[in-house]
């Protein structure tokens, strides 16, 4: 049986991890490769690297980092952040990334999704959607959630599926950083209306939240950052607990 996936997310700036991490075994806590290796050895199912640097050198630094990651880890990983062209995608996949995550650029120019899917296959296209509720309506937001749009989350999700997205990474801005659980109602609706996998993001605080997002939110995968980086939740413990609660999981 296919298992639910647990995905740690690492923020990267100029080739280094940004958010503080609490790993005593790391010689260099800012080294994304070292951190990634530890996660891979501790049963993370995939990894997501989100590049938030804004320098001119960004592309080159990122390509080098992606190659370094691909050399050292033996599980799939996705790279996102500022991807706006087929060339950006080609460079990342050529460096060894398995998938790319496209966000704002897809909203600005939806054809980018189909261009990437046609050239490299849907399996490598993750469309990231940041959304929050405005008067009870889920609206897509851009630029890391800062810029609201009038686009409805569910309509946009269906459109990206049609355009060839292989997966959707949905982050609820209302839940992100709260540690109060995932946006399970919206997640369940996405899962029911679409046939591609949905990755839940935003709100992980404890083990029960993961259980809920798989059971109530019908998510195919759950992504989190700080609860893993600060070891508030250890992935092997989380997975044992989920398995004990009847969730199909890889241990």
């Amino acid at each position, binding site marked *: *049986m*296919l*298992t*639910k*996936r647990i995905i740690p997310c690492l923020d990267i700036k100029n080739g280094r991890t940004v958010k503080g991490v609490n790993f005593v075994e790391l010689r260099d806590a800012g080294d994304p490769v070292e951190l990634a290796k530890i996660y*891979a050895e501790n049963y993370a*199912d995939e990894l997501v690297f989100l590049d938030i640097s804004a320098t001119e050198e960004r592309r080159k630094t990122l390509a080098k980092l992606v*190659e370094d990651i*691909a*050399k*050292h880890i*033996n*599980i*799939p990983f996705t790279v996102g952040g500022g991807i706006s062209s087929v060339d950006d995608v080609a460079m990342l*996949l*050529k*460096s*060894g*990334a*398995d998938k790319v995550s496209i966000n704002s650029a897809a909203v600005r120019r939806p054809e980018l999704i189909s261009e990437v899917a*046609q050239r*490299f*296959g*849907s*399996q*490598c296209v993750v469309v990231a959607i940041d959304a929050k509720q405005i008067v009870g309506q889920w609206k897509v937001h851009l630029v890391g959630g800062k810029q609201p749009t009038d686009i409805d989350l569910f309509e946009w999700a269906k459109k990206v599926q049609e355009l060839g997205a*292989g*997966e959707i990474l949905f982050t609820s801005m209302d839940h992100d950083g709260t540690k109060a659980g995932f946006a399970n109602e919206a997640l369940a609706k996405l899962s029911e209306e679409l*046939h*591609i*996998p949905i990755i839940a993001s935003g709100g992980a605080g404890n083990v029960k939240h993961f259980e809920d997002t798989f059971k109530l939110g019908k998510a*195919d*995968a759950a992504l989190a950052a700080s609860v893993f980086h600060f070891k508030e939740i250890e992935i092997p413990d989380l997975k044992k607990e989920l398995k004990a609660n009847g969730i199909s999981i*890889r241990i």
Partner: protein
Amino acid sequence: MKIAIIDYGAGNVKSIEFALQRLGFESELTSDSEVVKNADRVIFPGVGEASSAMNMLKNTGLDTLIPTLKQPVLGICLGMQLMCDVCEEGNTKGLGIFDAKVVKFDTQFKVPQVGWNTIFNLKSDLFKGIGENSYMYLVHSYYVPKHKSSIAASDYGIEYSVALHKNNFFGVQFHPEKSGKIGELILKNFIETSI
């Protein structure tokens, strides 16, 4: 040991090269028929859409070479699918090494299947040292139904063939290069196979 990884423009082939490096083997990414012919082992990867991948293969002339190879050949993911007779995707005629038809998942589950699933009914030295129900990473919408050349099965609403073997040809639907230590062991077994 010369290992050729067939590079015909389809997807992430670097990962296979890196996985082999972690095992201590050097390999060459190539679309050169001579290099492929003279290699001790050939890996035939592939991701993406079947008909366009097949066209890229034809453009390099490798479509006629691959079925004639005598050394151990390992098709991975779409590579395995293209080694079959026909793929439903894009109604693509394959290389005809395995007399199988690759069909689309028709289940209540999501398509593509993305993630880690178990493999069982393991019947080959390719799986030496690997336990029944080990987890492998898969990404695919099309599959090979139960088949006489099957050496491993998986289940996604329906039980299907997740690995095939015939003479010197092996095919795996999962990504050994992305399936942790167990996946790497499968690559190692393939390199060390004696057929």
